[in-house]
């Protein structure tokens, strides 16, 4: 071709959304700043803070945190990536069910599995009892330890790694694998030398999610007497109300979180290896006889340990108490706590969804990179550990209080005092806006820019475009977002523990308190309720995993 072709600019500028509307764009910026406020508050406070009053056992806390992260990282990697490989590369009886069922432990919060585990395996539990009955009174083995905690957390968190590893294995498609095999690599060598390295970015992403959950938790770890930095934040704040120290520790947690993110980047490197061309592993090996049975057993064992046995034990306690006490077994306070949970969760869901819709709408109206950047910023709260969000929220509220007082309102907003429901809601919004926006945004993605622009050109101002076009079209996403946030909010423990006002108890807090005092059978019923609720989003996930799997098996 002649110079005519080369002077033609690329067509990158086409099909861009319009030029955005100031009020809506500003709203996105404000939301993003509000979401970032707790983290910013922690950072600002630390940089201008006085000499840190670190707790004496700080070094041990840091080491414990590192060991816990390392242990859970290895555990989830082995279990998650291993199972993902098993169901991708092999066919065996029950494999098609296991593919999606293996996600199930996501419905089991660690603080519930934790106390069931303790009740079963601790010195007073039935397992050690049975062992003693056989071997006589030897030295009991305490599972209230770091390894016990690692086991419990690995069992509840491995699905993150499993999901991402499996997606990576499926996406690589048969081609890479076939290429490696034709080049003479054996099955094992192909896995370790080609497929596992190729899945590295996905594994890194999965591990990062796991690490964030580990950093967020300061309830489960306390059952096991594992003092992580997050526990430090909690005990310093709730124990002494020493704000300065709590902030110092929270900033340390934040440092850990940043290290995790940096680690993820590093592990991913410059690699963006996703090879298109998904398809069934054409060489998926059928495992027959005892080998198939072994594969199935590995899946079932994981599921049993992570979900079915604990649920069975909870149900057993519940039935047992009901049989002995009748309706009196249901604590009168249960109703009150349930209402608290439902109200807070509903409010959080509505707030998060409204904000998510607002952001999605503003992005659809356009405004370019700035608006999209701030919209992305609103989702990062999910990656901030609960302790940081909690302490940051307190700091932010204190700053607002000071400001209001400075403006001449005596007593300020009165929101701070020692935590408030408003604080819990705010922290929830920060933490759960991410998943809410992702769900809503998935629906918004189906609304083409031309549809929004047509509506505008037909004389509809942005507000009418929202109510008449965008809202009806993103309803499915809103429904998913409401469910996700509500369930997450009911399950959520660290933020409530940290921020709840005196006398305000939710179901999750109640379970934790009962379990912490070894009233396991009392905790069974509310714990079951939480697991049941948590099943709802997991079932949504089932459908997704199954669809991908069926698509993959049909393809190629």
């Amino acid at each position, binding site marked *: *071709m*002649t110079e*005519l*072709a080369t*002077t*033609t*600019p*690329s*067509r*990158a*500028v*086409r099909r861009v959304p*319009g*030029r955005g*509307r100031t009020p809506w764009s500003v709203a996105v910026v404000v939301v993003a700043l509000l979401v970032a406020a707790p983290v910013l508050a922690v950072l600002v406070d630390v940089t201008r803070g006085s000499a840190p009053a670190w707790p004496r056992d700080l070094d041990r806390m840091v080491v414990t945190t590192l060991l816990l992260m390392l242990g859970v990282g290895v555990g989830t990697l082995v279990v998650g990536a291993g199972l993902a490989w098993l169901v991708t590369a092999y066919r065996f009886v029950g494999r098609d069910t296991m593919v999606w069922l293996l996600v199930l432990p996501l419905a089991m919060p660690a603080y519930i599995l934790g106390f069931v585990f303790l009740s079963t395996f601790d010195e007073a539990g039935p397992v050690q009892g049975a062992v003693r009955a056989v071997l006589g009174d030897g030295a009991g083995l305490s599972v209230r330890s770091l390894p016990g905690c690692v086991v419990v957390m690995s069992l509840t968190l491995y699905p993150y790694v499993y999901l991402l590893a499996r997606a990576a294995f499926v996406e690589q498609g048969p081609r890479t694998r076939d290429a490696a095999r034709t080049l003479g690599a054996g099955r094992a060598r192909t896995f370790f030398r080609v497929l596992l390295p190729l899945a590295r970015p996905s594994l890194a992403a999965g591990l990062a999610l796991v690490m964030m959950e580990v950093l967020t938790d300061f309830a489960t770890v306390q059952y096991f007497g594992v003092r992580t930095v997050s526990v430090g934040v909690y005990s310093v704040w709730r124990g002494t109300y020493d704000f300065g120290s709590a902030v110092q520790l929270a900033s340390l947690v934040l440092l850990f979180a940043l290290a995790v993110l940096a680690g993820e980047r590093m592990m991913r490197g410059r690699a963006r290896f996703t090879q298109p061309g998904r398809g069934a592993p054409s060489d998926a090996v059928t495992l027959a006889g005892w080998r198939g049975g072994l594969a199935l057993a590995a899946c079932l064992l994981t599921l049993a340990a992570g979900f079915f046995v604990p649920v069975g034990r909870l149900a057993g306690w519940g039935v047992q108490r009901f049989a002995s006490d009748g309706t009196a077994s249901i604590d009168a306070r249960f109703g009150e706590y349930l209402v608290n949970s439902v109200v807070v969760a509903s409010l959080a869901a509505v707030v998060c969804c409204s904000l998510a819709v607002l952001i999605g709408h503003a992005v659809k109206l*356009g405004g370019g990179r700035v608006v999209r950047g701030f919209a992305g910023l609103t989702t990062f709260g999910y990656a901030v550990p609960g302790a940081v969000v909690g302490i940051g929220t307190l700091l932010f509220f204190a700053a607002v209080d000071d400001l209001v007082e400075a403006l001449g309102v005596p007593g300020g907003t009165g929101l701070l005092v020692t935590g408030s429901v408003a604080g819990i809601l705010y922290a929830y919004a920060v933490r759960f806006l991410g998943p809410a926006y992702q769900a809503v945004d998935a629906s918004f993605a189906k609304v*083409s820019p*031309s*549809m929004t*622009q*047509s*509506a*505008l*050109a*037909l*004389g*509809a*101002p*942005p507000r*009418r475009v929202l109510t*008449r*076009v965008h809202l*009806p*079209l993103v309803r499915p996403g809103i429904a998913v977002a409401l469910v996700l946030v509500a369930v997450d909010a009911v399950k959520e423990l660290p933020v409530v523990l940290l921020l709840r006002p005196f006398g305000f108890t939710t179901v999750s807090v109640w379970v934790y308190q009962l379990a912490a005092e070894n009233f396991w059978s009392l905790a069974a019923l509310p714990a079951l309720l939480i697991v049941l609720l948590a099943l709802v989003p997991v079932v949504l996930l089932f459908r997704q995993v199954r669809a991908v799997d069926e698509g993959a098996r049909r393809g190629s």
Partner: protein
Amino acid sequence: MTPLGRPAVRLLGVTKTYGAVPAVDAVDLDVLDGELVTVIGPSGCGKSTVLRLIAGLERPDTGAIVLAGHEVAGPAGFVPPERRRVGLVFQDHALFPHLTVARNVAFGLDRLERGRRDARVREVLGLVRLGDLAGRYPHELSGGEQQRVALARALAPEPTVVLLDEPFSSLDETLRAQVRAELVGVLRETGTTAVLVTHDQTEALSVGDRVVVMRAGRVEQTGTPQEVFERPASRFVASFMGDADFLPAHVHPERGGALLTCEIGIVSTLPGWGGTDADVEVVLRPHEVALTAGADHATAGAGVVTDVEYHGAFVLHTVRLTSGRTLRSWQPHAVRHPVGAPVTASVVPGLTPTLLRGDRAVTSPADVAGPADGDAAPRGRSTLRS
């Protein structure tokens, strides 16, 4: 409505830059009331941006846009799309999937009271002959029907101008001509002012009252389809709007005028060019080149057939001349000169040739008086199909 003949749409020195690249660069454009203007150019030439600027989806960096006598963008301010009264028709139709056909069409009529709104919906659906599908949902319609609904929806609020962004490219080949004829028929019937962006040369020429050819953000030529095709203003327009080859040519002074000759012989006389003696280039379209079998290297136009493309009714021959330059020629389908055959090319009689000096067309001796601006070297075959 604007009185006939006044521009319904007017762009005055409009520039829009994305980053460092001007997508639209100092564009002036008038669209008269009731006129259908097509805007054509290669990908990324800024044609869609022009549409988005008129619609108010983009704000110009400089310049002004006037719709029906009111400035909607410029120094005085900026009117958002919802207050501009423009109709938009997109390639993907962009119908609201959750609304029926009737409610899609009624979307822009919310300021009318119910009775008049229903009447208007029936009226425009009648125009596009979809009255009986009013209760259907968009996904229950064929692609062509969806496009007609999109037009009906855009027409319903009686906009100043309807803007169509490659409205037919999503339709398959067989459907396209029919839907295009129907839509253009409706636009003409209603006397609607319209701007249609396309990358299809045939479409631009056959549909538009006027054609605007754009390149790299600038308007290269504006004119009737005949003007744009027969008297292209530049090398780019000549090669973009149809196939064209370029040969060096010379204007000889002759008694009572001038004579234009090139490698394949006499092209034509040039009345009014009396006494001119200048080097130029001549634009030759394949239908303007005649071929006869056999070649004598002593005569002008001797060459060898290097390629034969059978197109059905016509056969496109590519000929390499003695100089090494190539020319293309349409021949009736009964005429076949096999590859390798010697042929003699000549210019069909009665041609009014387009002459180039540098990259611009020249129309009078005054244009060739000075030295050629830019590179006058022949470029041979220079075609761009988008």
